[in-house]
């Protein structure tokens, strides 16, 4: 199993550009999450999904959009990138809903907006 994979690993965007961060898991997990981690800081939940077709906002959703058309994939869309979105983005997944919520994280995407 590859676990949770994320692409790209690094990206530099100009202000106003858009991009999609890809996330795929091969563990047949129901729950998937997107977090951002600013330098030296903790994890902030952007969006989460409890199954295909079901998504909901976390604590910092502004400027982002998600979709979940399959169990495996949970892409994060940035529209009109801003310098405040410079961060490291982690995708995670967990079994849910009858299991303890152990989250499996991807390796992250480091995004810089200039």
């Amino acid at each position, binding site marked *: 199993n590859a676990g*949770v994979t994320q692409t790209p690993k690094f990206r530099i965007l100009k202000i106003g550009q858009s991009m999609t961060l890809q996330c795929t898991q091969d563990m047949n997990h129901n*729950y998937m*999450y997107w977090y951002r981690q600013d330098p*030296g*800081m*903790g*994890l902030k*939940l952007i969006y*989460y999904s*409890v199954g295909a077709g079901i998504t*909901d906002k*976390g604590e910092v959703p502004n400027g982002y959009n998600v979709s979940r058309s399959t169990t495996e994939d949970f892409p994060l869309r940035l529209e009109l990138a801003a310098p405040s979105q410079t961060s490291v983005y*982690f995708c*995670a997944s*967990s079994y*849910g*809903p*009858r*299991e*303890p*919520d*152990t*989250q*499996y*994280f*991807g*390796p*992250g995407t480091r995004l810089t907006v200039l």
Partner: protein
Amino acid sequence: QQQVKQSPQSLIVQKGGIPIINCAYENTAFDYFPWYQQFPGKGPALLIAIRPDVSEKKEGRFTISFNKSAKQFSLHIMDSQPGDSATYFCAASRTGGFKTIFGAGTRLFVKA
């Protein structure tokens, strides 16, 4: 009620020392308390976890102590090594709930 408060923010210990990281929660519905370890440039990974029906759990050099009445839990690292230098996150969740609540993280540096 959804917060998990973690302290200290950073910690420096000598090799062989026993760093202790503390967390406190308010929501008594939480029933799963994992700790995650994150090395620089990597994603967090599960280190050890505990349920509230036990007061202590050991895995190798890592021990979780859990105080249900005080709503507190802590991570102890015995005989710490430079390779333990990382950021540690405590967390809490409720089975069947949708989200895990993470603490703010503790940056640990173990001096050789």
